[in-house]
């Protein structure tokens, strides 16, 4: 046996209600869910949202496959080990897993000399490039909830990506700083106007703006705030004067926050948009307090880059082929690495059945959530458990500071991604001729 299937916690099959359950299906990592399990059925009693309803629903067939044929787990691991162990330029992608899964992936990558990137790698690097180039001033979810008197959301898509953002962060019933709620204003800059947003007592203003021009808009906003002369009358089709009230509000905020998610920033160079935002915020702090909140999507993205950073020194897009970590945020994107000669792909995706590997002819091993929909049958498919549903684990929240323990909610024969990756590494090591 190469895989331990014993659950860490024994869960009774009869009706059972779990309190304070963390939900790993978006970057908000809400942990106030109440979930009832009855005869294997999972019902969210409190704290649910569209994404958690979807995420906690179980589906699929638990059998591993090789080239579409059902095989034992042992055979699948053998085949995966052979494929990855013999690859010259292996790539480990997806990385939609928990910290333990990421630790296992890093150990395997070090052993076989693989490169690493996450599904949301490009979105992560857009922020990281700014951190590495200039830095920034940021904040976290509890600070926003309790302290902010001005919240500027860049793009209404955030309300869909993080369904409980308003309920949990923007419009809570109480705040620690007494007058934060009374004075709070919410401004949504850009995106569609028809987002699904719950009723809120917080005054909300929507300013239509094209997301692909957010960098220019923020630059103009910065000029208005600094009272620098602007020759143009419009920016991205907007009358510049229409931004003046926003500039005024920003200047008057006691604790203002600007929130973005890089996935929602369109255009050619979203990292430059992030840089404009960060410089605007940094300038403001000469006299007042203002902070940014880059909110990462979820799917284990922050867990992956944090663990990769502490173990290798680099936040993903790192190649261990030479025996030492080499960082290249451009050439080591999943797409470029596949186009530039990667000869085996290990794809880990344990949260979302729609996050399939990129369409590639490179031999691929998929460790995926069972029921995963794939356009192309991979060489090896091994269904793995969902952290926080089928097994315990730890994941980071989208503000990159808080991490929470996930629980096993249902009995499951599905191995954790970490266990499969460890088993693959053990198999490769046992086959290696000692040097």
């Amino acid at each position, binding site marked *: 046996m190469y895989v331990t299937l014993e659950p860490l916690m024994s869960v009774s099959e009869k009706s059972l209600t779990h309190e304070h359950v963390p939900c790993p299906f978006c970057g908000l990592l809400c942990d106030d869910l109440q979930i009832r399990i009855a005869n294997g059925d999972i019902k969210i009693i409190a704290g649910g949202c569209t994404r958690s309803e979807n995420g906690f629903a179980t589906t699929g067939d638990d059998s591993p496959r090789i080239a579409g044929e059902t095989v034992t787990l042992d055979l699948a691991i053998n085949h995966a080990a052979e494929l990855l162990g013999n690859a010259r330029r292996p790539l480990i992608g997806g990385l939609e897993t928990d910290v333990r899964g990421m630790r296992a992936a890093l150990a395997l990558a070090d052993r076989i000399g693989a490169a690493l990137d996450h599904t949301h790698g490009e979105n992560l690097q857009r922020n990281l490039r700014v951190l590495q180039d200039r830095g920034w001033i940021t904040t976290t979810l509890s600070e926003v909830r309790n302290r902010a008197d001005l919240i500027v959301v860049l793009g209404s898509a955030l309300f869909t990506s993080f369904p409980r953002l308003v309920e949990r962060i923007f419009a809570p019933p109480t*705040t620690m700083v007494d007058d934060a709620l009374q004075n709070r204003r919410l401004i949504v800059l850009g995106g569609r106007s028809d987002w699904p947003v719950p009723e809120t007592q917080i005054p909300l203003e929507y300013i239509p703006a094209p997301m692909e021009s957010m960098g220019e808009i923020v630059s103009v906003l910065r000029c208005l705030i600094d009272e620098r002369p602007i020759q143009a009358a419009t920016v991205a089709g907007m009358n510049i004067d229409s931004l003046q009230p926003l500039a005024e509000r920003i200047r008057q905020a006691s604790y203002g926050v600007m929130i973005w998610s890089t996935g929602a920033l369109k255009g050619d160079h979203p990292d430059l948009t992030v840089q404009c935002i960060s410089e605007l915020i940094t300038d403001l*702090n000469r006299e007042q307090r203002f902070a940014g909140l880059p909110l990462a999507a979820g799917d284990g993205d922050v867990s992956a880059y944090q663990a990769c950073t502490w173990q290798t020194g680099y936040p993903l897009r790192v190649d261990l082929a030479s025996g030492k*970590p080499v960082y290249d945020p451009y050439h080591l994107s999943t797409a470029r690495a596949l186009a530039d000669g990667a000869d085996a792909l290990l794809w880990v995706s344990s949260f979302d059945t729609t996050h399939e590997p990129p369409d590639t002819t490179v031999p691929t091993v998929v460790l995926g959530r069972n029921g995963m929909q794939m356009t192309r049958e991979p060489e090896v498919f091994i269904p793995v458990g969902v952290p926080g549903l089928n097994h315990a684990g730890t994941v980071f929240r989208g503000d990159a500071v808080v991490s929470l323990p996930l629980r096993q909610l249902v009995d499951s024969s599905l191995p954790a991604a970490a266990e499969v990756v460890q088993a693959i590494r053990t198999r490769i090591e046992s086959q290696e001729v000692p040097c």
Partner: protein
Amino acid sequence: MLIRLAGGTLYDPAHHINGEIRDLYVRDGYIVDPEPDAQVDQTYDLRGKVVMAGAIDIHTHIGGGKVNIARAMLPEDHAAAPVARSAFTRSGSGHAAPSTLTTGYRYAQMGYTACFEPAVLPSNARQAHLELGDTPMVDKGGYAMLGSDELLLHMMQTGADQSAINDYVAWTLQASQCLGIKVVNPGGISAFKFNQRELDLDEEAAHHGITPRDIVRTLTRAVHDLGIAHPLHVHASNLGVPGNFTSTLQTMEAAEGLPIHLTHIQFHSYGTEGKRRFSSSAAEIAEAVNRMPNVSMDVGQIMFGQTVTASGDTMHQYANHRHAHPHKWMCMDIECDAGCGVVPFRYRDKNFVNALQWAIGLELFLSVDDPWRVFLTTDHPNGAPFTSYPHLVRLLMDRSFRNDMLEQIHPAAAAHSRLGSLDREYDLYEIAVMTRAGPARVLGLEDHGHLGAGAVADITVYTPDADRERMFGTPAYVFKDGELIVRDGELEKVVWGRTHTVHPDYDPSISKQLRRYFERFQTVRMENFMIGADEFSNDGHGELVVHHGRGRNDT
């Protein structure tokens, strides 16, 4: 398995052993009394070698959010210092902010067997432990940061009694699984969130109206009442501000005679004399430490070269951002709990201020009489990377080497420093005090830092060398829990060490209030905020050791 370490020259200050030739016996990971009739399985011939307990670093930023931000921010630091994997060690990188595995290997290669992360935000403690869990070779632990968390400030503002605060402090230790309590710029991280840019010891913080002195007094009392071995670990107000020595002296007094540890005190020993309005007040600080037996300190020595500063003190990291080198920096407000700031920095020997900082640190080392109350740190990575310790040891042990270095720094700084007139040279016994016996005592780790029976067999063996930097940089042998992990400065075996925490008693009814606080205000539930002992297993690589302290005694 019985191991004999034969004929070494022992320096074991906990037992007043100063350079005596003795055999040591190790069984099952512990040092044991000599067993004349027992069969020895393995003998190491240590004739002519110096034997000490494994070294302990009481203040080194090696794990947690701000360290990892420093890593992510500095790919150039890592690209210049890649570390290849070997048959049994992992790859890594970094000079100023090395990756975790590399950090553990390097500490072991210098004879260190325990390291303590001094700034664990309770809201980020899980990450700190994840990183420490991936730091091999050494035992570890952390100090939980309090004093700018809105809850404590609110309790103080509304007149909560000391006993309730003690309960909260004890709960925090358990929730964050830490070994001590740290305060950073008391109240100042919170005040910065309310746009306050300075906060002196007796100044009221903007929102809560509490003074830093109140916070220091309340927390030293709590730590004392709870019977925690490690005194309140204090990063004082006004870090880096010229003239801050007065508030540092006042901070010592704020403890009102209870034990207090002043950390990286070099950064808090500045006067305002001279035409540059920046001078050394090391003499005043050392005089106070010598006079006040309740005070201990670590130095936070700076060394010249590139490093990165990572601190919870957002107020002063923000103020210092204009000195960033390379020019990038970040600050973050965190969870109504604390904050962090990361500012890369290059200390230059030809810069007056940097040169004087270097001299001030050494003046402090050489002017505090009792080596049991001063600890060898560079506040890694803030003053310098921990890998500069062997060089620092040589500066302390070798006066002529020190004076050679003094001649190379900015001449005005050298002229303004008393360093050239300080003749003291540390001897091996004193080095063993300040890097082993003292840290173990100040942390309450009774089976660490000494070579008596019952101690864990964390042992470092050096080959004597007049060049103390070479001697302390390349131990002949390092044993961790009785296993040989380093030979001639090279790694032999990877081990994982344990995590130490202290769990003083608290009234369980406080959980009710805390649960309500978390539900009303926080974005995390109390039940998930708390770190369980089961989170330390790390696939068999980790283990939590729970200490109980001296017992609680509220006054």
